[in-house]
């Protein structure tokens, strides 16, 4: 990895910005007889060929799904903000892939971890419905974007108050420990969330209780417009692990296999009773905080540099091709499969109904089942004639 950036004058410049660790075609690659059976293991990651292709599929699905969401946003069919993970697909997918769904492992994603939810079994049809506020979306139109969860498939939606999911996942994994279950939890936070009280309290609590929890600090350089150097005086987020008396590791978040491997070690440690691990994954947020954000605070050339030199999908497809056991037609077929799935899901989601007003009163409590109908709404099903979408969430709306 690159040099430490904390307190340095390069502001938002990413510490590993200049290094390109993407695998180049190895000189001897063509000499080997490639093993194209799906069970062929990669020596470094231990993943089979089929698994490595699956990683590629989830990364591609994440990117293509978000590209479709951008189209829908511009058509005002996404009624709220849109949060991209462009350039961060590898860290979400690789880390989530280290969990064992068959054992009931659970993760809590951050706003830029759509990929982690897809790995856990979320489908484009749900994501599209969420963003479009449909009545049959997972939250029935109550919550935005990827703020939803499913305990059966193993993900718990975050809330907007950053850091809050750390104590919650401490409690989830505390329950695993109390019941003697062989399960692990993983929670994502961004560089900004490490500054919250909830992050500190939750991490400390989990550390003391030796909960089977992995805390991934996804360091993408910016919290909204604030660069890491204004978020912490620590040289690296990894340094915080020592203060909590827990294991810490750091990896290149744009290398999906490296991300997988570092998380797998932490998951194995947690499952073996070794407690909490803090992982810092270095990546870069190529889009703004949300779609409205024009990124005027980013130094010129920085985004383009990351796009050109360190795109996780480019890097991974090059590495797969260089390994000799994958060919470009296979990757193209995966791309097409992801796109077809999204096309079908989008058509389906667009046709799905919006919720009706009085649905809003149901389900605050188990008992009573619904809130009281306001007296002035008696007999009213639609509060206004036209449900207007605001022109934009910010001043720079595209």
């Amino acid at each position, binding site marked *: 990895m690159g040099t430490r950036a904390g307190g340095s004058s390069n502001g938002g410049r990413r510490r590993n910005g200049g290094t390109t660790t993407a695998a180049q075609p190895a000189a001897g690659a063509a000499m080997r007889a490639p093993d194209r059976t799906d069970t062929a293991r990669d020596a470094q990651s231990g993943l089979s060929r089929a698994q490595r292709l699956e990683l590629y599929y989830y990364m591609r699905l994440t990117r293509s799904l978000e590209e479709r969401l951008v189209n829908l946003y511009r058509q005002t069919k996404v009624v709220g903000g849109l949060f991209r993970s462009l350039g961060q697909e590898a860290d979400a997918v690789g880390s989530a892939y280290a969990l064992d769904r068959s054992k009931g492992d659970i993760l809590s994603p951050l706003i830029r971890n759509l990929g982690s939810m897809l790995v856990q079994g979320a489908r484009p049809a749900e994501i599209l419905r969420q963003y479009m506020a449909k009545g049959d979306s997972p*939250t029935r139109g109550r919550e935005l974007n990827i703020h939803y969860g499913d305990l059966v498939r193993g993900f718990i939606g975050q809330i907007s108050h950053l850091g809050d999911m750390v*104590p919650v996942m*401490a*409690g989830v994994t505390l329950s695993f420990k109390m019941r003697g279950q062989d399960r692990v939890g993983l929670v994502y936070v961004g560089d900004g969330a490490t500054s919250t009280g909830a992050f500190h309290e939750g991490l400390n609590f989990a550390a003391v209780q030796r909960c089977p929890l992995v805390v991934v600090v996804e360091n993408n350089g910016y919290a909204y417009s604030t660069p890491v150097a204004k978020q912490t005086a620590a040289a690296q987020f990894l340094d915080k692990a020592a203060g909590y008396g827990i294991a810490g590791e750091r990896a290149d978040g744009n290398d999906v296999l490296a991300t997988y491997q570092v998380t797998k070690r932490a998951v194995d440690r947690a499952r073996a009773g070794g407690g909490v691990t803090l992982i810092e994954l270095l990546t870069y947020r190529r889009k703004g905080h949300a779609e409205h954000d024009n990124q005027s605070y980013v130094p010129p050339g920085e985004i383009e540099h990351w796009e050109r030199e360190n795109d996780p999908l480019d890097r991974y497809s090059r590495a797969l091709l260089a390994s000799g056991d994958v060919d470009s037609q296979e990757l193209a077929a995966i791309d097409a499969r992801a796109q077809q799935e999204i096309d079908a899901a989008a058509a389906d989601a667009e046709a799905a109904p919006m919720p009706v007003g009085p649905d809003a009163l149901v389900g605050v*409590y188990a008992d009573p089942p619904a*809130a009281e109908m306001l007296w002035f709404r008696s007999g009213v099903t639609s509060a206004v004639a036209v449900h207007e979408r605001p022109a934009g969430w910010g001043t720079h709306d595209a």
Partner: protein
Amino acid sequence: MPEVTYLEAIRQALFEEMERDPSVFCLGEDIGAYGGAFKVTEGLQARFGEGRVIDTPISEAAIVGAAAGAAHMGMRPVCEMQFIDFISCAYDMLTNYVATARYRAMLPCPMVVRGPSGGYVRGGPFHSQNPEAAFLHTPGLKIVYPATASDAKGLLKAAIRDDDCVLFFEHKYLYRRIKETLPATDHVVPIGKARLAREGRDLSIITYAATVWKALEAAEQLEREDGLSIEVLDLRSLLPMDDDAIVATVRKTNRVLIVHEDTRTGGIAGEITARINERAFEWLDAPVLRVTAADVPLPYAPPLEDFVLPQTADIVRAARQLARY
């Protein structure tokens, strides 16, 4: 059956629910070996072990947040705030995460947050608070605040068995000052139902927690000295609130005095007044009046604290004025 204090009634409820249901566990500061700042959890760790009676760091947000996570997974955690004043440190977790979980994500949060509340004990600004009004405004939470040992036990059992988050306020002035014989059977008091503490014809006092006892004292004095027949309604549950019981007492006496120990502005008395206005305005013979604490932080010195908090003499004076209206 021996008489049991309000504090012992709470301890019994915790003990019995932990015996009954292995998913119930307690977490909080100094609740294990030490038994809690007021000894409410004394003996629990010896009986149930460190795994189910967990001493935590000084981290109210983590206590509440971890309880929520465990509750999602089917546990029924009971959090202790060492003093309820510190619940404000978990305000975000309670109002943003816990209270919204079922509605936005269909995530159950069966959990209790309990702790010693209230003044009259020379506790000063940070060991005397009544923060119920701050949470009354949050859909998704339930709030109970018992005045008797029997209700303390029965409501805590109901709170632990409830499928949503219940804030359980315990009045520390009452901990060891009141006693009663409790029912021998599994005693559960339903959340959302008020209790008629005293029947009367001329005027209703609507109140809860420690001021129930002051209202009862005032009622006796008013009967003795003025020949007034005072009804006292103990709300017990603040969220949900027993509107039917409130309306019933208004229709019976046509005069209402609301008494609470919390400060005045934005306090629960205002909410009760609005409900009476909406549902029983034509049954009133006089304006609804309030006896509450003054709008100041609670001071330490006895002459100051006693001046800020509502006293029996205040209730007597206010009731006389209302009866004359």
